[in-house]
C-alpha cells in the first residue's frame, strides 16, 4: 500500500482563465491537503466545446502555487530611490500596516479630489491580458467602482500585443471585438497569421481539429510556419506586413476575374451599404429633405432614400442624380444638382481595380497563381444561395472565413486588412452567418454578456456606433486620460474598456515627453498593478521601466518579485489561482472561439488555504474599501453587480447590507445565489456550498445567437460596408480639431481615415523608422517578428519550470528562429549564440535554423525581457520587445502598433 493509496483525496472545482481564449473548467486534485495535479472537468464534457479540458498552461498552476519564490507577506519598500539598478529593500510588514498605508494615501487623495490639477485621475490601475485578471481579482472591481475616477491608460501591451484593429473595426462593423471563423461549420479558411492552434484556447483547438477531420481547408498565410501553419492544409509564406496587399488582391480577383454571380447579391443589396450612392466629394448623396442616403431604384429608375418601401436598389453603376445633398464634416451640408454618382459598391470596385494578383505577387512574394487559386477556392466553397437549419431556424450557409492574427491586425496596414477581410466575407454573404466570419464578443459596446443586445439602430440604416466626439464643440481638446484616447481615437469610444484600448503606449511615452501642445500629464499618485508586467511585455522595455520608476507610489499585487513590482512601494500577496474564491460567467459567446451552446457561471473554489500571509482578493478589496471609508459604496457596487451578477433582480434579492463588512464566503454566496436566480429566471437558486460541490451551473444558449445576421434582419439594419463614410467624416473632423490646436504630429495617422482603404507601402514605414533612429535600413536587412507558444501566451508563467520544460519540446522555444539558408549564409549553425540588433537595442539568443521560415525573417517567440522574475531571469532567452522602438511614427490611427522591427543578425558565439 503506497502513500498515494491511503491519501485523503478531494477534487475541487476551478477554472483556468489565464488567457482570453478561456475560461475553461478544471478540477484540482488535493491529496492530504496538498494540491497535486490539475484534471479536466469531466462533468462539463457535454457543455464545454473543449470537452471540459484545459490547456497546458493550467498545469503550471500547481508549481505556481508552491513556487518557493512567492511573495508571501505584505512588503514595503525601504529604498526611496527607484530604478532597475536600485535594490528596493523590501521588508515584510503586517497586512494592517500595508493596508493602512495605502488607505492613508487614498483618503488624502479623496480629501484633495479624485482628479489632479490637469484633470487626470490621481489613481491609476493596470491589469494584464485581455481583462482576464478580472476573473482573479475577486471583488476588486467593486472597490474601483466605489472609488470613482481611475486612469487605465498605462497599458501592459494593449494595442501592440492584441489584435487591436480587429477589436475596434470588428466591433464597429459587426460587433466583433474578437473575430473568428465559424469553425464548427466552415469549409474554407484563409488565415493571415491567426495562430488558432496556439492562442485560440481549447475550444478553438478542438474545433479546428474536428474541422480538419471533416475536411476543412485552411490556408495559413504567414512569414513563419507556426503550429497553426503546420496544422493547415497549406502554408503561404508572405513577406511581413504585406497582408493588406494580399487581401486587397483577393477582393480584386473576386471582383474582376469572376462573374458577379459568385457574389451574394441579395446580401450586398439588402444588408450592406453597397447600393448607397456616393457623391463627388466622397460622401453619400442624401435625400435633400430627409437627409437619408440615396440608392438608385431599379424599378422607378430614380434615386430614392435607401429605406423607401418596395425599393429595389441597383448594386453597381453610375447615374446622374438631379437633386441631392451630402453631409460632410462638421455638419457641412453640400447641395448637388445633376451630379454623377456611383454606388458604394462601384466605388469599391474602382478603388481596388489596380490590386491585381500580379501586382500583389510582387509586393507579397506570393505567386499570382496562388492568389488566384485561393480566391477561386474561397468562392467555390462559399455555397452562395444555400441555407442551413440551426435549431429550427433557417439561416444562410456560407462556409468560408478569413481570420487575422496579431501583427496583421494591429499597427499600420491593419485597417486595410480588417476591411478587406470583412469585405471578403461580405461579398459572398459570409458575415455573421453559419460557416462564415463571426464576432464573438463586444467590449466597446454593452452589454458585454450579449453582443446581440448591443445592436441598436443608428444612423443611415446602420447599427449604432459610440465614437468619441470630433465636433467643434464636443471634441476633447485637453486629454482626459494620460493616453488621450478620447482626443485621438474616436472609434475606441469612452466605455469602461476604452481607455485600456486606446493607444496605451502613449501614456508611457507622454509620461516622459508630452506633446508640446498639451500640458505634461502628472504621474498618478497611486498606481495599482495586478497580473501585469509592462516592464517586460511592452516595447523598448528599458525606457518604459524608467518611466515606471518615476511613479510616486505603486501598489503591486505580487506573486513573485518581478520587473514591474521592482519599482513598487507596497507589495500585496493575493491568494493565487488555487487558493481563492470567485464566480465568473462562462459560455454564451466570449472571446476568440468561446461560443457555447450553454451559458452560466463557474466557481473557482479554493483548493488549499492561501500560503503564507497571502489573502483572498475579495478580503483585500473589502479591507481597502473599509479603510478608505468606501464600505457603503463598495457594498452598493457589489449589490449592483460589480462581482459579476446583480444581487437583486426580478423575483430575487440577495443584496448585502451596505453598512457592514462581509466576509469572502458571504459575498460569493450572495453572488452564487443571484447568478443562478438570474440565469434560471428565478426558478433555481444555488449557493456557494452547492458550487463548491458542483462547480458550475449552466442553462442552454441558443446557437442561433452565435450569429448577428438574424438580429440585423430583425432590426432591418445594414452592415456599414463597403464604404466608410462615417470614418471619412470622423477623420476629417479630427484633423480639423487637431490642426485648430496646432497639433500636426498625428497627421500621418489621419491618413488612415479613408472611405475605402488603399494600399500604401506598409513595410517602408519600418525602413523609415530605421532611418529615423539614425540607421541605414540596409544594415538591418531582416524582419524581426514574434510568435506565441501555448505554454506561455498570457500565462503569467515565465517563472514556472514545468512550462519551460515542456515548451522545450517545441522548436524555437527560447531561441532565435531563422531560415536555414539564411543561417548558412551568415555562418550560423544550430545552437550558435546570435545577436539580433535593431537601431534601438540588441538581444541575444540561441540560433535555431529551420526550413519553415522566410529567408528574410527571424522569429523570437514569447516575451523574455526578465531580469528580476525568479527562474525566468536565468533563462537568458532573447526578446523582441527589447529591440522594438516605442514610436509614434509606427502607431496607426487606432493607436496600435505591430510587433515588427527591422533587424540584423550575427553570430557571437559557437554552439
Amino acid at each position, binding site marked *: 500500500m503506497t502513500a498515494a493509496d491511503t491519501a485523503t483525496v478531494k477534487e475541487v472545482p476551478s477554472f483556468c482563465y489565464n488567457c482570453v481564449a478561456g475560461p475553461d473548467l478544471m478540477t484540482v486534485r488535493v491529496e492530504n491537503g*496538498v494540491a497535486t495535479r490539475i484534471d479536466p472537468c469531466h462533468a462539463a464534457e457535454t457543455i464545454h466545446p473543449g470537452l471540459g479540458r484545459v490547456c497546458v498552461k493550467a498545469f503550471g498552476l500547481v508549481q505556481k502555487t*508552491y513556487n518557493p519564490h512567492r511573495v508571501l507577506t505584505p512588503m514595503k519598500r525601504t529604498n526611496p530611490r527607484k530604478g532597475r539598478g536600485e535594490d528596493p529593500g523590501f521588508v515584510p510588514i503586517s497586512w494592517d500596516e500595508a493596508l493602512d498605508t495605502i488607505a492613508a494615501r487614498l483618503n488624502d487623495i479623496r480629501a484633495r479630489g479624485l482628479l489632479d490639477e490637469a484633470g487626470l485621475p490621481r489613481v491609476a490601475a493596470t491589469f494584464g491580458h485581455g481583462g482576464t485578471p478580472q476573473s482573479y481579482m475577486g471583488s476588486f472591481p467593486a472597490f474601483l467602482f466605489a472609488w470613482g475616477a481611475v486612469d487605465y491608460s498605462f497599458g501592459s501591451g494593449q494595442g501592440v500585443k492584441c489584435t487591436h484593429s480587429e477589436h475596434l473595426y470588428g466591433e464597429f462593423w459587426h460587433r466583433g471585438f474578437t473575430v473568428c471563423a465559424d469553425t464548427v461549420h466552415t469549409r474554407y479558411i484563409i488565415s493571415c497569421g491567426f495562430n488558432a492552434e496556439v492562442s485560440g484556447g481549447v475550444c478553438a*483547438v478542438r474545433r479546428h481539429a474536428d474541422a480538419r477531420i471533416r475536411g476543412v481547408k485552411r490556408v495559413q498565410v504567414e512569414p513563419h510556419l507556426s503550429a497553426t501553419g503546420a496544422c493547415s492544409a497549406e502554408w503561404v509564406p508572405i513577406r511581413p506586413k504585406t497582408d493588406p496587399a494580399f487581401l486587397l488582391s483577393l477582393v480584386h480577383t473576386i471582383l474582376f476575374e469572376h462573374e458577379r454571380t459568385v457574389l451574394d447579391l441579395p446580401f450586398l443589396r439588402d444588408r450592406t451599404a453597397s447600393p448607397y450612392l456616393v457623391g463627388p466629394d466622397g460622401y453619400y448623396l442624401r435625400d435633400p429633405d430627409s437627409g437619408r442616403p440615396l440608392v438608385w431604384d431599379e424599378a422607378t429608375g430614380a434615386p430614392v432614400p435607401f429605406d423607401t418601401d418596395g425599393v429595389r436598389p441597383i448594386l453597381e453603376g453610375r447615374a446622374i442624380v438631379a437633386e441631392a445633398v451630402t453631409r460632410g464634416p462638421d455638419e457641412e451640408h453640400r447641395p448637388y444638382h445633376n451630379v454623377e454618382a456611383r454606388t458604394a459598391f462601384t466605388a469599391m470596385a474602382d478603388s481596388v481595380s489596380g490590386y491585381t494578383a500580379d501586382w500583389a505577387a510582387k509586393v507579397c512574394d506570393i505567386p499570382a497563381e496562388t492568389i488566384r487559386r485561393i480566391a477561386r477556392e474561397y468562392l467555390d466553397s462559399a455555397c452562395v444561395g444555400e441555407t442551413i437549419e440551426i435549431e429550427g431556424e433557417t439561416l444562410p450557409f456560407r462556409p468560408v472565413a478569413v481570420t487575422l492574427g496579431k501583427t496583421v491586425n494591429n499597427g499600420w496596414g491593419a485597417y486595410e486588412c480588417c476591411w478587406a477581410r470583412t469585405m471578403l466575407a461580405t461579398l459572398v454573404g459570409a458575415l455573421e452567418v453559419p460557416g462564415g466570419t463571426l464576432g464573438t464578443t463586444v467590449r466597446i459596446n454593452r452589454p458585454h454578456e450579449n453582443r446581440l443586445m448591443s445592436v441598436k439602430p443608428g444612423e443611415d440604416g446602420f447599427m449604432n456606433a459610440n465614437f468619441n466626439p470630433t465636433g467643434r464643440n464636443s471634441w476633447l481638446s485637453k486629454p482626459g486620460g494620460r493616453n488621450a484616447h478620447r482626443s485621438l481615437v474616436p472609434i475606441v469610444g469612452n466605455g469602461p474598456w476604452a481607455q485600456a484600448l486606446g493607444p496605451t503606449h502613449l501614456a508611457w511615452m507622454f509620461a516622459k515627453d508630452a506633446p508640446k501642445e498639451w500640458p505634461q500629464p502628472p504621474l498618478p499618485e497611486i498606481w495599482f498593478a495586478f497580473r501585469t508586467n509592462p516592464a517586460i511585455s511592452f516595447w523598448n522595455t528599458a525606457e518604459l521601466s524608467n518611466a515606471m520608476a518615476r511613479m510616486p507610489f505603486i501598489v503591486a499585487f505580487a506573486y513573485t518579485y518581478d520587473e514591474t513590482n521592482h519599482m513598487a512601494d507596497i507589495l500585496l500577496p493575493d491568494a493565487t489561482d488555487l487558493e481563492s474564491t470567485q464566480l465568473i460567467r462562462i459560455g454564451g459567446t466570449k472571446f476568440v472561439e468561446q461560443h457555447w451552446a450553454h451559458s452560466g457561471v463557474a466557481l473557482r473554489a479554493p483548493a488549499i488555504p492561501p500560503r503564507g500571509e497571502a489573502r483572498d482578493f475579495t478580503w483585500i478589496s473589502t479591507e481597502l474599501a473599509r479603510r478608505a471609508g468606501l464600505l457603503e459604496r463598495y457594498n452598493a457596487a457589489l449589490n449592483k453587480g460589480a462581482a459579476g451578477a446583480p444581487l437583486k433582480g426580478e423575483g430575487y434579492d440577495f443584496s448585502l447590507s451596505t453598512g457592514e463588512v462581509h466576509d469572502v464566503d458571504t459575498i460569493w454566496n450572495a453572488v452564487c445565489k443571484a447568478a443562478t436566480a438570474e440565469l434560471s429566471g428565478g426558478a433555481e437558486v444555488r449557493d456557494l456550498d452547492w458550487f463548491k460541490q458542483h462547480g458550475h451551473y449552466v442553462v442552454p444558449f441558443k446557437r442561433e445567437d452565435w450569429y448577428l445576421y438574424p438580429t440585423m434582419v430583425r432590426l432591418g439594419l445594414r452592415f456599414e460596408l463597403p464604404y466608410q463614410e462615417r470614418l471619412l467624416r470622423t477623420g476629417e473632423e479630427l484633423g480639423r480639431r487637431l490642426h485648430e490646436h496646432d497639433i500636426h504630429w498625428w497627421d500621418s495617422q489621419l491618413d488612415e481615415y479613408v472611405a475605402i482603404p488603399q494600399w500604401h507601402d506598409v513595410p517602408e514605414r519600418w525602413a523609415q523608422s530605421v532611418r529615423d533612429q539614425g540607421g541605414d535600413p540596409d544594415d538591418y536587412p531582416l524582419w524581426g517578428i514574434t510568435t506565441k507558444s501555448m505554454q506561455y501566451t498570457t500565462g503569467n508563467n515565465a517563472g514556472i519550470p514545468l512550462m519551460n520544460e515542456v515548451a522545450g519540446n517545441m522548436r524555437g522555444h527560447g531561441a532565435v528562429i531563422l531560415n536555414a539558408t539564411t543561417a548558412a549564409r551568415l555562418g550560423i549553425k544550430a545552437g550558435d549564440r546570435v545577436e539580433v540588433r535593431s537601431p534601438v537595442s540588441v538581444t541575444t539568443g540561441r540560433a535555431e535554423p529551420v526550413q519553415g521560415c522566410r*529567408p528574410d525573417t527571424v522569429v523570437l517567440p514569447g516575451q523574455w525581457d526578465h531580469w528580476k522574475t525568479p527562474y525566468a531571469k536565468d533563462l537568458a532567452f532573447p526578446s523582441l520587445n527589447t529591440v522594438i522602438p516605442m514610436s509614434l511614427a509606427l502607431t496607426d490611427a487606432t493607436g496600435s502598433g505591430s510587433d515588427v522591427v527591422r533587424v540584423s543578425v550575427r553570430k557571437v558565439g559557437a554552439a
Partner: protein
Amino acid sequence: MTRYVMIADLRRCVGCQTCTAACKEGNGTPPGVQWRRVLDLEAGTYPNVNRVFVPVGCQHCAHPPCLEVCPSTATRQRPDGIVTVDYTLCIGCSYCIMACPYDARSLVGSEAGFAFGEQPTEAEAARAEGKSIGVATKCTFCAGRIDAGTARGLVPGQDPEATPLCVNNCISGALSFGDIDDAFGPVASLLAENKSFRMHESEGTEPGFYYIWDKGML
C-alpha cells in the same frame, strides 16, 4: 483477450504539450523525465515545408526489445499488453533504454533534483517516494488507473477514471486509448476507418501505439 493500445491522430495533434504536462504532473516524474511528450518535426525545404507533431512514449510493444534485454526481469508484459517496470527488481543498468527503438525510457539518479532546485515543493514531496530514482522508468499507460477503473467496472478509454491521463487531457482529441481486441470498440473502429502506421514496424516490435494520418483504409 484484451490488448490496450493508444492512438495518436497526427491530423489533430497541435504540439501543445498538454499531454506532456499532464503526464508529468500526474505521474510525478522528476524534471527532465517525460514519459509522454510531443516531438516537433519538420520535413521538406523552404517553401515546401511541413511540420508534424508526433506524440511519443512507450509503445507497449507486443515484442518489447526492452523486455528481451532486461537482465533483472524488472521489465514485464501484462496479459493486456502493458509493459511494466518493477522498481523493486530493476538494477538501473539502462540496458532497456539502449534497447528501446522509441527512446521512451528514462533513468535519473539523485541528481534529478526538483522543479525549483534541491528542495521539493510540497506538491513534489507529496508525490516523490524515491522509488523511481536510479531505476528505469517509462509510460505505464497509467496502469494503476486502468486497474483501479476496471476493478470498478469502468472501461479504459471511455471512462476518464480508467483512462491514461494524457488521453483524458488531450485538448485536440488526438489521443485515444482502448482495447484493440474489442473488434467493435472505438479504438478498433478508429483504426478501421483511417489510415495509420506504427513506428519502426520493420523492427518487428508490433507497437501498441498507432499513428493515424488520413481517413480511409490503408
